[in-house]
Structure formats: C-alpha cells, structure tokens
C-alpha cells in the first residue's frame, strides 16, 4: 500500500503540491487527472523518489520512500516518465533487459532471460526485439519502455502520461495491458492521464487534482460526475453512459 501523508513541494514560494494526502489501494489502477499545472506529475515523481519533497511522508508498505535503499526500492517500485525522446541506439531487447538490472546488476541469469522473453511477449514485441529503438515509431518505443517496466517486475508501477504522442489504437492497447497487469498479476498501477475518458474507462480509482491540491478522490464513478469535473477543469462537461462506460463530452 502507498500512503501519502500531507506532502508539499514548493518551487520558490508557490506550492506545486499542497498538503496532499491519500492512500493508494493495492492491485488496482489509480489515475491522477487534472488540468495542466495541477501537480500530477510532480506528485508521481515524489512518490517514486525522483524528486525530494519539502514536507510530509510517502510510505510504501510502511517504509518512508526517501529513506529506503535505492536498490531495494527498484525491485518494488518502477517509474516511467513521459516521452523518453533520447535517440539512443539500443535494441528493444537490450532496453527490456535493463529491467532486470536491479536483480542481476547486468549479469543476466536464465530466470532474467525468461522474464525478458515474457515481457517482450506480453507487449507483442517479438518481431522487433532486435531492432534499434531509433528505428521504431513512437508507439512501438513506448511499448518497449513498458515492456522494460514489466521485466522489472515490481509490485508498484508508476507511469507518467504513458499515452503521450500515441494514436488511438496504441493508447487503447497500452491501457488494456495495464488493466491485465492489475487484474492478472495483481500489480498496483498509478498513472497520470491527460484524457479524462481513458481514466474513466480503465481506472478503478481517480484522484482529481488542481493547483496542487486534491479536489476529490474515490472510485471512478464518484469522480466522473458533472459537478466534480466542473470544479477540476472549470468546464461544463456532459457525461453519457455508452456500453457501460461513462464518457465525458468536453468538445463543445
């Protein structure tokens, strides 16, 4: 379980994350939504110890994240930041095998190789496993990075806008994979999402943020409501049930 207690992050005098508290349930998908500058990504980076917080506590299974050994934490929690746009000539397989680094420090065992194979299979990357990343499309690259996180085999998976720059087909594909990771493997997944409809359709819980504060948090159907969304996005959003999905119509 991830417990966030009264976390604050200041840039100068402005609080980008302002006394945020919440508990993220195990084995579920929790989405952070909110307008630009709401502090979603910053909060995710704090939870994953990439950014230091100014106040508060982040407890992962009861241990403060900033005090946990970095190597040990890498086997428990993984974080994928948005759009890794560096043009590096690594093959898909080499990238995915980095996911095993916390376990083998680079000397891959048979178990590691099996984990890599199954991660590649999970993301349907078999046909391109020996291609260089700079030869792939944005969607294929994103899938390769997610395969790496799968190979890392952590209980907690944090993803910062994993659908950025992806087309509809690949966005849906990735959300379905995340759903399977939670349902089949019991992973706890936290994602920052820009598109409120992906959050609505695929997540179990939603945390709505604005100006560094939590506006409301709870099960998806309690958040995807006209009143809540108006407070978060400052827009009058119509919501319709289509095929048991709550779809937000924010286009007009």
């Amino acid at each position: 379980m991830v417990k966030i207690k009264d976390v604050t992050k200041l840039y100068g005098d402005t609080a980008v994350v302002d006394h945020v508290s919440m508990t993220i349930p195990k084995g579920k998908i929790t989405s952070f939504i909110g307008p630009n500058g709401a502090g979603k990504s910053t909060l995710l980076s704090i939870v994953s110890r990439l950014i230091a917080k100014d106040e508060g506590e982040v407890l992962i299974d009861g241990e403060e994240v900033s005090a946990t050994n970095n190597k040990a934490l890498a086997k428990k929690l993984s974080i994928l930041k948005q759009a890794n746009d560096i043009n590096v000539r690594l093959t898909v397989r080499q990238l995915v095998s980095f996911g095993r680094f916390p376990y083998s420090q680079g000397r891959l065992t048979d178990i590691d190789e099996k984990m890599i194979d199954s991660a590649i299979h999970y993301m349907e990357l078999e046909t391109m496993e020996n291609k260089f990343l700079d030869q792939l499309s944005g969607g294929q690259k994103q899938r390769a990075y997610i395969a790496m996180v799968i190979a890392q085999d952590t209980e907690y998976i944090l993803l910062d806008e994993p659908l950025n720059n992806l087309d509809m087909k690949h966005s849906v594909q990735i959300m379905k994979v995340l759903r399977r990771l939670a349902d089949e493997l019991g992973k706890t997944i936290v994602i920052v999402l820009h598109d409120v409809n992906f959050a609505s359709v695929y997540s179990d819980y939603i945390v709505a943020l604005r100006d560094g504060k939590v506006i409301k948090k709870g099960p998806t159907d309690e958040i995807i409501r006209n009143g809540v969304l108006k407070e978060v996005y400052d827009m009058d959003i119509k919501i319709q049930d289509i095929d048991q999905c709550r779809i937000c119509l924010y286009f007009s």
Partner: protein
Amino acid sequence: MTVKFKVLIPVLIILSILSIFIGVVPLSFTDIFQLTSQQQQIILVSRIPRLISIILAGVGLSVSGLIMQQLSRNKFVSPTTAGTMDSARLGILVAMMFFHQATPLERMLVAFLFSISGTLIFMKILDKVKFKDPIFIPLVGLMFGNIVGSITTFIAYQNDLIQNMSSWLQGNFALILEGRYELLYISVPLVIVSYIFAHRFTIAGMGEDFAKNLGLNYNLVVNTGLIIVALITSVVILTAGTIPFLGLIIPNIVSMYRGDHLKNSLPFTALLGAVFLLASDIIGRVIIFPYEVAIGVIVGVVGSFIFLYLVMRRSAYES
C-alpha cells in the same frame, strides 16, 4: 564496412608487424633471425615502445570518447571537444612552473586534477544551457577549450615556457623511447574498469531518472566515468601529446554498426581506435620518408574529414 573482430584483430597484427619494420634504421623481415646488436637495440628501445604506446593511446582515447558521449548523451562530446585535453595541458604547465622536480606521476596527477575540473565545468555548462541543436555542444566545448588553451599560452609566454608547451600541443610518437612511455600502462586497468562498468554507463546514459528507477547510483557512475576519462587523457597527453578527434570519430563509427550498448561497443571501439591510430602513425612515417609527419596532423586531417561527414550525415538524417 562492418566492424568485426575477425577483421580487426588480423589488421591490428599486420599493422603492428609493419610498424616494427618501418623506420630510418633499415630492418627487413629476413633480418629477424640474425639481428645485429644495433637492430636489437632499435627494436627494444624504440620500435616496440612506440608500438605499445600507440596501441594504448588509441584504445584509451577512443574508450574515453565513448564514455563521454554516453554520459553526456551527445554524440559530439569527446576529450577534444569538451575542453578535457586543453585543461590537462594547463595542468602540465602548472606542474612545470610550481613543481620543477615533479616526477611524471606527479605531473600526471596535476594534469588529472585540471582535466577533471575542466570537464566538470563543461558538463555544468551543458546542464545550465539547454541547446536545441546538439551541434552547438562541440562548438561550445571547442570555444571553452580554446579559452583554457589561451590562458595556458599566456602563462607560458609570460614564463618563457612556450617551447616546452608546444611538445604537448601536437601528438607525436617519434619521441617515445623505453623509459618514457610506461605511464601509459595506467590506462590498461582503467579500460578494464570501463568494461566492468559498461552496463552501468549505458544505463546512466539513459538519463538520471531512468537510472534511479533501476536502483543505479547515478552520480557515482557518472563521476567514475569522468575520472576514468580525465586520467586516460592526462597520461596520453603527457606521453604522446594531443591527439585530436580520435575520441570523437571512433565511437561514432562503432555506434553506427554496433549500437550504443557499451558491453557490445566498447571492445570494438578500443580495437578500432588502436587500428586507426596505428595506421595514421604508419602513414605519417612513410609519407615523407625518412622524415615524419606528426601523428597529430595525420589524425587531425583524416579525423576532421570524418567529423564533417558525421555532422552532415546527421543533419541529412534530421531533415
């Protein structure tokens, strides 16, 4: 052109044999079984030390360039284009001025301190100034290097040391004799450490957040890399002098064919660096025989053309 061990190792061996037999004192393959004492002397005191130092310098500088490019995530960063070499030369000048009796090892340490500081300053500049076009980075590095270089020249001029400094300005293996190159052996364990760290360097090259996610101590790995680079650069400059472009072009060529995973590319980079430097040295020795063209000039001329090719290929690729 593929880079293969099968090809490179025989080429290195053939060039090594050639290198031993080329020189002002005549020595032919048939002499090998009945060497005169003068010929023996030449081989042991001059030809073999020269060969070893070229191989060590070629390996060391290209591996340094590879590590720098990986850690800075920029294909155009190398000891030549990041002020590392110029800073090392300033260090040598300081060592000459303030520690007259300094042993080569002490000189190396001073040169090392300067080259690591210079490299760190350059890395800080890269951190502070976000360049949109990666081609600016080597330009900034060359400017930074020239500023350090002009400080060196100024101080040397004031102290009548210009002549002494110029021997470190242009790489030259003609002066290598037994007893004057052994410092270069320091690069052997450093290259081995680089290979052991290859996996970590590759991950660190993916960025700080990426490395941290995998539980890697990012700062430790980056600092280890920079220390290795500064040490190798310092010993090469002290023994052979400045050899430009080698650390830039060799890793770039290998990257095209072998990718950027250092476990794969480092051995090839090392080998190709040795082959390239040895070939350049042999060309320099035969082109105006019995005189020699300094190897720094040969590598500079060939290297700058390859560098231009790489820059143009890159801009063609981006457009």
